[in-house]
């Protein structure tokens, strides 16, 4: 459309211009003709004629018409004589000059006064330029427009087909990936464009999905294992006891052992229940303003009772001077549970080596760091530490079910905080917790 407008306007303006130009040329010729035909001065007239013949090329079918107009002569007569239309002659007489086009012959007429006699001089010629050059140009424009349209159509079709090739490719690959072959990834090309960003985003998503899938698989097998072990020992104990008659002491002993196993089962179920409750936060937990340092002290007292050999050092070197900066909105029981879990783990996996608890607070967060010198977590197992029942490969010698850390993380999440674990094998583990400060009016 734009092209048509462009070509059309070029053609139209050139056409107009060539016509005005041609009329002007005819007019000059008419003036010269009038000069050498009617000028009294014969010498000037002669020289005009020579100049004209020498310097002005003859136009195609150039003709001159010279007519004298009497004061009262009929213009119709002149028209008839010259075969020119009447209105044209009238126009010349009235306006001193006029133009006319009949087919491809162009006429320019002027009025000429000489010795108080009125003449009209008409020069006619065919416009070779207009008829041929313009036609040629029109053809060129037409062909060019058609060519351009063809090329653009081809190119746009080509690009519209191929520009989405990488995206189609991604779609094809992603479609191939299902739950059975979730390990498949889209090949990444190392260009820094949007497509490779899309690909790496997809791959990241798939990585997370794969971890989630594995978590689920692990959860079921780990959970059944955790529940299975005490159940098997209860069953075994009972079967052995029922084989023959036993003394009351033996019964007592076996019942105590059964009770211990049942208690263990009960504990697992309890923590699992907590985990489930904290995992879904649709039920609003009761929040109150708490001082984190008090909570840590209470936790330490609790652990002192459970494990008198612990070596927890609470570090106040970064404690803010203003106690307001330690207050958080939280549920006392839940935070208590989380801290107990973390500190218990820290003591357990470090065989009661010193555990350092640091409390600090910035302008909008309370920072807690629990740093132990325990066995650490292998780097390859870091992605799984928040999976329920997951236990790192180096924890064989320690008792536990692997619910503590996920539970603590869920609790911190409920409080809009962050829990982060960093660890070096054989050096120790640091658990960092950030909790938002309570807004106190």
């Amino acid at each position, binding site marked *: 459309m734009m092209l048509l407008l462009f070509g059309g306007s070029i053609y139209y303006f050139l056409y107009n211009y060539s016509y005005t130009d041609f009329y002007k040329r005819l007019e000059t010729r008419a003036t010269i003709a009038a000069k050498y035909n009617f000028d009294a001065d014969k010498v000037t007239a002669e020289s005009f004629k020579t100049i004209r013949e020498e310097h002005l090329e003859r136009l195609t079918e150039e003709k001159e018409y010279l007519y004298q107009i009497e004061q009262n002569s009929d213009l119709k007569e002149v028209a008839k004589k010259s075969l020119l239309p009447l209105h044209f002659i009238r126009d010349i007489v009235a306006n001193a000059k006029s133009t006319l086009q009949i087919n491809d012959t162009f006429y320019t007429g002027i009025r000429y006064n000489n010795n108080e006699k009125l003449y009209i001089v008409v020069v006619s010629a065919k416009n070779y330029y207009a008829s041929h050059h313009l036609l040629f140009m029109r053809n060129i424009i037409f062909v060019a427009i058609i060519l351009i349209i063809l090329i653009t159509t081809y190119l746009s079709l080509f690009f519209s087909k191929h520009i989405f090739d990488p995206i189609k490719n991604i779609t094809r690959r992603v479609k191939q990936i299902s739950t059975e072959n979730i390990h498949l990834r889209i090949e990444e090309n190392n260009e820094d464009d949007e497509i490779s960003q899309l690909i790496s985003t997809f791959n990241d998503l798939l990585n997370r999905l794969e971890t989630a899938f594995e978590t689920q698989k692990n959860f079921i097998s780990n959970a059944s294992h955790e529940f299975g072990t005490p159940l098997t020992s209860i069953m075994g104990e009972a079967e052995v006891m029922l084989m023959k008659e036993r003394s009351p002491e033996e019964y007592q002993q076996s019942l105590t052992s059964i009770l211990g196993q049942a208690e263990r089962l009960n504990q697992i179920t309890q923590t699992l229940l907590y985990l489930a409750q904290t995992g879904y936060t649709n039920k609003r937990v009761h929040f109150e303003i708490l001082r984190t340092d008090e909570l840590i002290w209470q936790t330490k007292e609790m652990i002192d009772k459970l494990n008198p050999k612990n070596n927890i050092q609470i*570090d106040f*070197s*970064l*404690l*803010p*001077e*203003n106690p307001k*900066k330690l207050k958080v909105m939280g549920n006392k029981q839940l935070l208590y549970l989380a801290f107990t879990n973390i500190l218990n783990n820290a003591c357990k996996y470090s065989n009661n080596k*010193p555990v*350092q608890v*640091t409390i*600090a*607070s*910035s*302008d909008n*967060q309370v*920072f807690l*760091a629990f*740093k132990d*010198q325990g066995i650490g977590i292998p780097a390859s197992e870091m992605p799984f530490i928040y999976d329920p029942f997951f236990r790192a490969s180096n924890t064989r010698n320690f008792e536990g079910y692997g619910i503590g850390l996920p539970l603590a993380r869920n609790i911190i999440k409920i409080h809009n905080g962050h829990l*982060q674990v*960093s660890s*070096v094998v054989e*050096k*120790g583990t*640091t658990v*960092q917790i950030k909790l938002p400060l309570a807004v106190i009016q």
Partner: protein
Amino acid sequence: MARTIFIPTDFKIASLNTLKLALNNIQEEKVNVILVYCEEEPDSITEFLFYTPQKTIKSLKSPEFEEAISIIRNRYETVIQSINIELFHGYTVNSLKNFVEARKIDTIYLPKSYALQLPKNGFDPIPLIKKSKLPYQEVGWETNDYASEQVQLNTLFSY
């Protein structure tokens, strides 16, 4: 009378330990802290155009660094009057002396064991300070061990 102290920094949280230790030494006095980051000046005209120290500081300062500063400010709320970060461009002892004099700095605290980890264009002012014969005080603990008794600020932040 408030004291003004000079602490070199590299915009790493570990460098703030020097500040913490320095503040432990100061009691019952108001302190203005100037954290100084030393950087080579840009040497092209185009870089100088629109150059402001604030912009450089802003680009180097991480949210964690700011958080760590606010932890220290909360810890020593009654002592600290202000904490400012400033850029120092000089290479010579005289320019350093001018800088110290202009800001009425009373004490320069340097880390004993921590080596500044400087970003691009930054340089370590500690040799210059030692050369200048300005009074300085070194603070720090002997070992940088993981099991160190002293709690380092960076325990609170993960990298």
